[in-house]
């Protein structure tokens, strides 16, 4: 069982972030993994960077995951973080549910990791597992290692079969942060895309969810809303069968609403925000609630919407 980790830049490659991520990955000493950097056509590495990449054991644009069973691919952005022990935890679940995609819970990049871990542990202090772990542990929870161990003590997974659930669709079809079985990949679709993850989801009968976060990342809808919109629209709804088509169309409408809400909270340039509004307005189909942002956007111009919403 092999894990192909494919790193894609969020925008222009952030070298510092990349080196941090590579450090996090290699320090896990997980033998059966290989790492690749997938650069967009308009980006290139300097000679020094190329040397460094070789020293790290990172390949560049050479990922060809063999479509053999039992292997997994995970796409990550260089701005993401991988928590200690993550690869080993993934491997435990992969071994038990080979062939099923695995969706990963995650912490948010925009907040302090330690604070999030503390909050998570506090939220689950009633859990029988954590209580038992506290009985056998000797160190205090104030110790960073102990916090991590407490996090591990809570780790669990579930096998979910409600594949068309709209509320859980984002965690199942986002282009990064999902472990995809390589035998289910569609060669004609881009490797890092919602369309690819969605195609994988549609082929299976279940998806495994790892509940305790093992990565830290930004949400696509918040970090790169326009790119997320592109991803959503690249799924060819005409090709979907009768079970998936209505579920996906509903999901996209929900995401449009979500994008409108989050985009107004995030720092987007005026131009980017107006572009986003224009795109969303074009994509609205079906009835919307009159007093929702989506409903309002149907009635007014994107420019006015920018002034109102931002």
């Amino acid at each position, binding site marked *: 069982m092999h894990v192909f980790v494919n790193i894609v830049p969020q925008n222009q490659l952030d070298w510092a972030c990349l080196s941090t991520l590579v450090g996090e990955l290699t320090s896990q000493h997980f033998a059966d993994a290989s790492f690749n950097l997938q650069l967009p056509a308009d980006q290139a590495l300097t000679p020094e960077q190329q040397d460094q990449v070789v020293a790290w054991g990172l390949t560049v644009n050479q990922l060809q995951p063999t479509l053999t069973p039992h292997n997994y691919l995970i796409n990550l952005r260089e701005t993401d973080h991988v928590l200690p*022990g993550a690869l080993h935890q993934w491997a*435990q679940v992969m071994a038990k549910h080979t062939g099923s995609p695995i969706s990963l819970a995650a912490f948010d990049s925009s907040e302090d990791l330690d604070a999030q871990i503390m909050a998570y542990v506090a939220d689950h202090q009633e859990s029988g597992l954590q209580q038992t772990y506290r009985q056998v542990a000797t*160190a205090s929870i104030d110790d960073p*290692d102990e916090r991590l*161990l407490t996090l591990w003590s809570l780790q*669990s997974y*579930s096998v979910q079969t409600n*594949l068309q659930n709209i509320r859980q669709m984002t965690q199942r079809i986002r282009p990064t942060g999902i472990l995809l079985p390589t035998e289910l990949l569609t060669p004609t679709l881009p490797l890092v895309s919602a369309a690819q993850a969605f195609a994988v989801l549609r082929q299976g*009968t279940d998806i495994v969810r790892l*509940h305790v976060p093992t990565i830290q990342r930004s949400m696509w809808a918040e970090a790169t809303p326009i790119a997320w919109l592109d991803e959503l629209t690249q799924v060819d709804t005409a090709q979907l069968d009768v079970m998936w088509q209505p579920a996906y169309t509903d999901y996209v409408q929900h995401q449009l609403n979500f994008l409108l809400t989050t985009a107004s909270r995030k720092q987007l340039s005026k131009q980017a925000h107006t572009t986003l509004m224009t795109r969303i307005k074009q994509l609205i189909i079906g009835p919307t609630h009159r007093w929702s942002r989506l409903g309002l956007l149907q009635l007014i111009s994107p420019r006015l919407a920018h002034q109102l919403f931002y």
Partner: protein
Amino acid sequence: MKFSIITPCQPAELSQLLELRQNLVNQTTHDFEWLIALNTPLDLTTPDWQLPFAVHQVSFDGSTLGAARNAAMATAVGDWLVFVDSDDYLTANALAEVSAIQPLSADTLADLYQYPTYEPHTSFVASQEQAPIADSLPKWGGPKRRQLKNRAVNLNEAMLNQLSSDQQLAPVAANWLQHKYVRCTGDDRWAQFNRQLKITGKVIDRRLVQDNQLVFDTSNALYPDYAFLTQVMARTSSYLRLADPTYIRVKHNDPINQPSVHQLEAPDRWQQRLAAWHTSLANISDEGLHLAFSRYCLNRIHRYLYMALATGATVDDDDTSTISNVPQLITQLHDFLQLVDAEALGEISMLSRHILNKIRRQPVYPHHAINRIVHLRQLGRVIKHRGRGITRLSYMWWFTKLPIKPKTILYESFLGRNFSDSPKAVYNYLQANYPGQFKHVWISNPGVTGMPDKRPNTIVVKRFGWRYMYYLATAKFQVINMRQPKWFVKRPSTKFLATWHGTPLKHLVFDMDNVASANPLYKQIFFQQSRQWDYLVTANQFSVDVFEHAFMYPVEKMLKSGYPRNDILSAPDRDARARQIKEQLGIPQDKKIILYAPTWRDDDYYGVGDYKFTLKLDINRLRRELCDEYVLVLRTHYFITEHLDTTGFGDFVYNESSYDDIAELYLISDVLITDYSSVFFDYAILKRPILYFVYDYEKYGSVLRGFYLDMEKDLPGPLLKTNDDVLAALHNLPQVTRDYAAAYQTFSQRFNVWEDGHATQRVVDAFFDQDDLK
């Protein structure tokens, strides 16, 4: 030796014991002995019994479970006693997981973590052979809200090496992270009390048991465990449960033929239960345990005893309490309540507390108070569901007290989905031959069209509505072709005619190994419902034989009449009626008709991604080659037809999936194409060709094993696997008819000799007394 596995076994459970044997062989550790407490001789010298672990048979005095376990415990030599019943089994790593826990001290009550299921062991093993998944468990058989969803992830040593600090992780903590479990100790010692009080799957230190001479109650046949377990609990300081279930408790899905101890019909069950609680509570000296056990017992009484004692809560006027000798039970309860912790008594709800305090003071039976609490609970449930169930409650409380209406007949066909089948035939016959004699009440779902609401002396009532409940309670005659509701009360002097809805093709009720239906107690419920049928209509001797074992229904109560619904197929005016129906459907009279009626294939056989909404029959090709001579009438599951666009097929395809009466479609069609549906039994009455389009025959193999017929030998037409074969057969129907003439003859002899067009008359004459028909 690490473990002694103790398995009590009854002679009837030998086959399950053999399955458990294989299961134990598959354990990842064999550091155990297996002690089988069984009084029937077992030849352990045969090669089958040469196992990688020691096996001993132990005989015991008497026949109780307690005696069996005691005898086995007395001979055990392992460090730990593990209690595994013969009908249950373990996951492969169960014993290895317990072994790996360091340290496992002697004062621990360990638990393999029970996982309840109704799926038989054999069926789960078979499914695992087809698609093995490392951590899969059988289908959940406990309460839905408690269904196990999350599975713990055990870590490995490589992970522990990633910790940044030099501080050494405590060995106990490191061991725990690799073999997770939940431990209740200190203030939480009595958490998960219900779990702690179940003996199966428990791992207990042998010396603790033997040193303290702890034994099961040999005199209590139903509840031998309480006395033993409470004493073990009193002597252990913690309860340890593995984080993942490893003990699979198989609940019995056939309580009629194969009841478990908990399902045995025992009128003195409550007496035995109270006796066991009494003995256990009297011997508990630990305060915390005394309180916890008192709480447990009071909670059981509060939840279950009142319902069992209440009268008039579920049925009309009889005292149907399932408890024998109520005064003795009350005296026993009075004595028991003297021992119960006052704090626990103070915690239960006010009404319940009043009842129990009353019994505690004096052994009197507060009959009205108990009935009141049960009625209030029923009402509370209705209020909680915002009025849903109010009609049913009225049925229970009031309608079943009203006088019976001697001239009212209630009809239901396919749970109110349409006006069809044998109830329709009986109705039409009575309307034609006994006009004005009866009031006919048809049950209909909302939105169903085609009901006979405009016909004389007939009313149509909404299923589960007020009028439905009223007539269900008061109509003297009920004519129903599926099952009546579970809560239906069969009142004295009413008559119930079960017409059923087809010759059985797939295994029914008691012939099913694994019940896949929504309710795992389907067999028991079906048994109770079918006892309420006064007559069961059968179509042929084959059905009689099948119903006898599949429904466990007495042959003398079956009507050997043929199906009333099929009279139309033998009627003298059937050609004229066929022309009329064709005209009604807009089908040209000069066109022949192919009727395509496939079965609905559910998710068991197709993955989610499989595109199952398409018809595999190539309609375009059929149209190209046959449209001059034929039209195609489709009769499929509504789910398929809803997603099927037939507009492109012009006037070749007629989608009649929602047509009420399929018999009328038989009448107009010239050839039937079907697969695994039982429609062909009826169609064969017409002696017209039948083709079986079984494109997924191989895939359907596991299902075919559950058929009463041999699809290869018993059918009156060819099995066709491709569209080419179907087309070839349709082009040359006379040849098919000739080839299958003998098979058709045999088939008709076997299944359709009673169908002479007078079945309805025979049914009516048998079901109604002459006085009723006057």
